[in-house]
């Protein structure tokens, strides 16, 4: 496997997460009508971290927190040789008239976000949906989707692969770029 190039790690990584949290606080205040939703499986690593920071920074943030699996909503299901196995969805609330922040680690083609928005409709009609993403690969979009809160914009060729590693899984927080998909 070719060695990946480190884009950011450790302290810079923590500063980026902290900035995203502050941007959310600036926009939503006490989060009284807000739902934060991580997209399974990798977006949940990010949303867990952000939710943990927000709970530490604010006394009692009023948001509801859910984890959404979008496997059954993907548009590439029958173009694959094998079906994808689903992750668990943990959505213990309806999103009717709520402000939603969807969270995923890497915004790439935009198809995952499209599927997430379809899935979200099944929990009611939200008043507003925003997207928070740690990485935005801005030149690789297939759909007119963009992030509202972006940790880092990465310009990469289509063959490249951007990977986010988390302390919980990999021992260190860092973002790596590989010249080709693994």
């Amino acid at each position, binding site marked *: 496997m070719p060695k990946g190039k480190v884009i950011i790690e450790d302290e810079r990584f923590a500063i980026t997460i902290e900035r995203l949290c502050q941007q959310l606080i600036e926009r939503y205040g006490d989060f009284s009508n807000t739902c934060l939703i991580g997209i399974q499986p990798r977006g949940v690593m990010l949303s867990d971290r952000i939710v943990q920071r927000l709970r530490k920074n604010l006394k009692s943030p009023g948001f509801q927190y859910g984890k959404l699996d979008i496997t059954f909503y993907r548009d590439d299901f*029958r*173009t694959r*040789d*094998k079906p*994808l*196995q689903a992750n668990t*969805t943990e959505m213990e609330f309806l999103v009717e008239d709520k402000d939603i922040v969807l969270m995923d680690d890497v915004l790439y083609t935009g198809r995952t976000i499209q599927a997430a928005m379809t899935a979200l409709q*099944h929990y009611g009609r939200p008043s507003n949906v925003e997207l928070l993403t740690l990485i935005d690969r801005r030149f690789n979009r297939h759909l007119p989707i963009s992030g509202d809160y972006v940790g880092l914009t990465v310009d990469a060729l289509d063959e490249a692969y951007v990977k986010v590693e988390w302390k919980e899984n990999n021992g260190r927080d860092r973002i790596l770029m590989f010249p080709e998909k693994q």
Partner: protein
Amino acid sequence: MAEMQLSSRHLLGIKYLNHPDLELIFETADSFKEVINRPIKKVPSLRDVTIANLFFENSTRTRISFELAEKRLSADVVNFSSSASSVKKGETLLDTVNNILSMKVDMVVMRHPAPGAPAFLAEHIDAHIINAGDGTHEHPTQALLDAFSIREHFPDFKKLKIVIVGDILHSRVALSNIFCLKKLGAQVMVCGPPTLIPKHIESLGVLKSYDIREALEWADVANILRIQLERQEIKYFPSLREYQQYFGVNRALLDSLKSEVMIMHPGPINRGVELDSDVADSDQSIILEQVENGVAVRMAVLYLLAAPRSTTKV
């Protein structure tokens, strides 16, 4: 988000599945159970798949359950029942199915009175076949939903003792359940009148008993089957009343046991024959949970068997 696949492209019987297949179906069904408890119970996964439900034999539960599962996956569904079709005019099974397939159908769910009919079709046609019951042979989705329902109460099959009571000889549910539970590592016993228990059933690795009390004392779970009078050409026991006296499960019998047994029934129940109402409607029975799980399990099977678009015929 791992890619997973069943080892077979059809579901003809539990016999043809392996242990990882069963686990994959259960894990997928867990996800679909969450889906069918949402306010909007529908996902778009199979939105360009057409499924034909071919029922050459009567069915209420299985048919509605499959149809709901298909519709909740957004598949297009065509229904067929033999009583209102050209089968009555003398058409062969293969001709009927080939005619339906030429209308571009991707999957076939079939119930048929002849054992092996789905296996025959699988050899001759291109679509994915799901067996919804073939004569006295197998009823794989029933066994899957039974095991899935047991798993919600007893996650470890290796410690579990399950007795199947009743008409083992004519029951496709019994055979599929035996295959399924044995593959999962459970201990299985069959219980019923000697005439309704096949000779050499022990060769499947199950115990047998002719005494309902002994069987229930042994078991953690009892799956009570219906007496299939429609398949019995000769008399296998003197009367239903006598059957009920010797093998019927009632409150008094259950209360006299040392430990509590979880009661299951695949339906339809003949109340007052194999199972009394004071048992069927009690907290000890999970009969309605089985029905709910049936939809989730069938969604999982359909999802896992749906063909990739590239390999379907154009």
